[in-house]
């Protein structure tokens, strides 16, 4: 069976497909959150050095990972939109941006809350936390630039270029921040050196999957609204059931 990948690259076909997929992602995400939290809090034992406080990692680490990957995915979609002029790709990039930014914020917030019991301060200039802060700025820059340009085509393309430049910069930024951190003997927030108990790993992976599914569901929901907004002059939109 040959899959025609390009069938769904048009807003007209993608819109109903996304609509059908959202409930699946949403429900499975909710289930995995419940399972993950159960394993993380009930099954996993308390840590030898950090006691109960380490349990923050079950939300901190997944949100960090997702915020970083979402940025690359966002930049990828934006690049596709820039190179191939496909509207839907640019719409996906715009749909992903706020979610990525919020995950970056959650990562910073939970990182700070983890830092307080560990290091006594709400913020330590740990290399990864600092890079995460810069990532948040990059997301905000993308969103702000897109919002400041009235012409949607120019907005999509300018923001895409910014995202690509940002992606190229991310390794440079991360390397320089790490360098800076070691120079100044900054603190490093990381899980204790002892190997992780199996339940902790399970909880971590479950929560990671839960967050991914949530991110996909939210991005699909958002892109549907973006499609509605951008294509509101077309016939197929006015024929939609929800509009009538």
């Amino acid at each position, binding site marked *: 069976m040959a899959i025609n990948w390009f069938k769904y690259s048009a807003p007209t076909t993608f819109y109903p497909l996304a609509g059908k997929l959202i409930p699946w992602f949403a429900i499975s995400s909710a289930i995995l959150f419940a399972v993950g*939290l159960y394993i993380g*809090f009930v099954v996993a034992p308390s840590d030898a050095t950090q*006691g*109960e*406080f380490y*349990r*923050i990692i079950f*939300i*901190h680490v997944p*949100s960090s990972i997702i915020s970083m990957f979402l940025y690359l995915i966002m930049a990828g979609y934006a690049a596709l939109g820039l190179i191939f002029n496909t509207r839907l790709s640019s719409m996906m990039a715009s749909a992903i941006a*706020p*979610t990525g930014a*919020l995950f970056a*914020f*959650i990562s910073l*917030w*939970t990182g700070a*809350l*983890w830092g*307080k*019991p560990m290091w*006594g301060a709400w913020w330590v200039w740990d290399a990864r936390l600092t890079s995460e802060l810069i990532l948040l700025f990059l997301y905000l820059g993308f969103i702000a630039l897109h919002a400041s340009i009235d012409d949607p085509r120019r907005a999509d393309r300018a923001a895409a270029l910014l995202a690509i430049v940002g992606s190229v910069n991310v390794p440079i930024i991360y390397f320089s921040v790490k360098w800076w951190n070691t120079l100044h003997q900054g603190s490093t927030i990381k899980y204790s050196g002892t190997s992780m108990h199996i339940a902790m790993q399970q909880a971590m992976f479950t929560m990671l999957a839960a967050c991914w599914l*949530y991110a996909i569901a*939210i991005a699909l*929901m*958002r892109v*549907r*609204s973006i499609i*509605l*907004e951008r294509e*509101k*002059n077309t016939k197929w*939109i*006015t024929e939609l059931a*929800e*509009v009538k």
Partner: protein
Amino acid sequence: MGLDIWMRENPLTYIWVGSYAVAFIIFAVEIAMVIHKRKITLQQVRLMREASEEE
């Protein structure tokens, strides 16, 4: 500091209220905003369609 002492005596509450609750509130707000945006976009499209039908 009062907060420090409270934190050490109630680690789980600290984690729940401080991190997880905040994260879930953020998720809830995000979901609410997406749903709201969909509602007003649909309204806009409906208005546009009615305006063009009157022509």
